């Protein structure tokens, strides 16, 4: 077993070399969990692109797979060596859970140690901790949050942080109103021989989900909603340079 594992690990850099660092990949796969144990949350997530035969390390997605369902993988080839988990590292990367069932597959750690958990950058401070002081003059400003493919859920240590940043500024700037626009990537795309498109109703759902939280975070400021289908990619830093991630978004416009 160890021999096979080492052989796979040795192959991985060759695959990575064949692909340019930063190259965008997307595919659908059944995820594989590698039970590395370097403490809490240290397990690895792997996904095999059946088209290329490549195994990728997708562990660094802010929303991780469920071993019972397919995932849509969207990521960029990282320069990181494949030593942690045993696959070409994708980073940044996203793994959206689809509804197609998968056979569960769990690998032992073998020679891989995984990654020790570290708090991500997008991590909210406790409520009692002081938030940054916003400086005026305050003018119209837009904040953006992002979603998993096909879902409207506010993702822990991603969206909640983005929303907290927005709410902190809004609380101090006191705009006249907020307009939340939900977007859905409704234009079909071909991935792994499958046609994927988000439902149009998801755009409204995303707007309402964000609006509901804003009404709780900044009570007293009117919140309106709008929605838009056929979302196009935008260059926003918190989408981490992943065009598909930037399509699945909600924009919060603070208007004075």
């Amino acid at each position: 077993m160890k021999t096979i594992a080492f052989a796979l690990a040795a192959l991985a850099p060759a695959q990575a070399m064949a692909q340019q660092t930063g190259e965008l990949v997307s595919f659908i796969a059944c995820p594989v969990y590698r039970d590395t144990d370097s403490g809490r949350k240290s397990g690895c997530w792997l996904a095999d692109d059946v088209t290329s035969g490549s195994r990728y390390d997708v562990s660094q997605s802010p929303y991780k797979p469920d071993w019972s369902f397919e995932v849509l993988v969207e990521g960029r080839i990282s320069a990181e060596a494949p030593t942690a988990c045993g696959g070409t590292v994708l980073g940044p990367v996203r793994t959206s859970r689809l509804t197609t069932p998968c056979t569960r597959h769990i690998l032992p750690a073998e020679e891989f140690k995984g990654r020790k958990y570290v708090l991500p950058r997008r991590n909210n401070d406790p409520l009692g901790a002081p938030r940054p002081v916003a400086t005026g003059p305050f003018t119209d400003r837009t904040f953006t949050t992002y979603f998993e493919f096909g879902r409207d859920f506010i993702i822990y240590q991603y969206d909640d942080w983005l929303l907290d940043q927005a709410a902190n500024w809004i609380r101090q700037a006191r705009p006249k109103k907020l307009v939340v626009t939900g977007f859905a990537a409704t234009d079909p795309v071909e991935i792994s021989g499958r046609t994927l498109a988000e439902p149009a109703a998801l755009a409204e759902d995303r707007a309402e989900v964000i609006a509901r939280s804003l009404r709780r975070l900044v009570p007293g400021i009117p919140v309106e909603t709008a929605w838009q289908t056929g979302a196009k990619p935008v260059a926003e830093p918190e989408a981490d340079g992943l065009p598909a991630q930037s399509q699945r978004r909600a924009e919060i416009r603070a208007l004075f």
Partner: protein
Amino acid sequence: MTTSPMTPQPNPRPIRLARRLALAGTVALAGAAISVGARSPAPRPDPWWQAGEGRAFPEQIDYPNKEGSLRTLLAGAPLKTRGHPFFEPLGSNGRACVTCHQPADSMSLSAASAQRQWERTGGKDPLFAAIDGSNCPTLPQDRRESHSLLLDKGLFRIERPWPVKQFNGEPAMPDFTIEVVRDPTGCNSGQYGPAAGRISVYRRPRPVANMKYLLATGFPFDPKQGHALPLDPDDGKMQSGNLMSDNRAGNLRIQMEDAAAGHLQMAGKLTPAQISQIRDFELRIYSAQQADRFGQDVSALGAEGGPKKLRDSQPGALGSIGKPVWSEYAAWEKIAPEEASRLTPAQLAFRQSVARGARVFREKTFLIFDSAGITTQVGFGNPVRNSCVFCHNMSQMGNDVAPGQVDLGTTTLPFADPRSDLPLFRITCLKAPHPYYGRVIYTYDPGFALTSGKCADVGKITLQSLRGLSARAPYFSNGLARDLRGIVDYYERRYSIGYTEQEKQDLVNLMSVL
């Protein structure tokens, strides 16, 4: 002021009669004391708090249990309970809040206390009121078997409306249907049950102590449900979501009104003054184990067990970024030789075991899988490797800093242990199937789904405090674990953790001193 308990004496049911009998009992006891002379110990107060008895609540009170003794502190001054709405019967059945939230049971109620009251009163105590202290009001109330769930498992009948009402009282259109598969109590058919709009589930009473921790909000979001915390309709502050097992009440006022109308069968409404008095009392009560099974103080030798630490600490801190959960016992990892020499080998070994248990609790990781609220949409993935402290993460208390609605499988098949004494429901999801259970789910208690109306929430039960456990067996919302070892054994079955026998005992010993 400190008081200690005594051997229980019978408490008949009618309140006025109870007071007369209590007076008579006092006279009789006094007579007995005279007859046996001065060597007899002074009479000590009954551990059972009868509704309306008018006893003063001291600033500190200790009660023994089989793991040592529990201490309850009342911050501030002693309380005159005469006329206090927590202690007076407010409804038609003679109960008060204290009836089911007993100080000796860490402000909850143990099955052992229920059994003792049954024996003492022949089942006439208001505790056994037909409304929810029996398996169903339609059963003959003078028979023990009609109260078997309370007597054997410490369970009260909780009636939930169908279709569901949300935490804010607003009706919700559920995305599932519910059918009764089995109805051993008879309280989910006929005039009861989903068809009659009245679903009966059976749950343990949650402790009314250490409340500032249960009300604390550590972060502005509920990561399990994916939204900002809801706002309290009374004061506009964010709500913790940690009060009720199904999160049906977001603040103490709503909880009190729910309990008064249901458990106390109060015809009218609580007045603002009564609500204020109850809230004030509940925010002053702290309860935790103070002595271990050897009678040794759990706040000795550098440890910080007991309720004083709870009373004096700030609530809502996440253990992973602050004071680690159960680090109160870290000093027992290395007891100095001169101090160790003053302990018996068994006492020393026990303290070392408690300290190891705290580390096992925090550091022994295992794969958590198929547990909605943990492994679903939050982003952790399914499975995720972590330890007990992943969810029991609040410093000093071990409840969840975030709203704690998670599905450990304790009420839902196939993870729940087989139960012939509880009703079994069949849930059919009308939209997306549940990610782990599929479209059709069999459950003894849908839990949070009876508040949210979502099939994705079936089986979710709010995590609770781990304090005062030794005083309030059995455990889990449906009493499936009859003792502390039963808790560990359930988790071992559920997640195949691989605890060694030593680790299991260390966890049991840890929990026994919380």
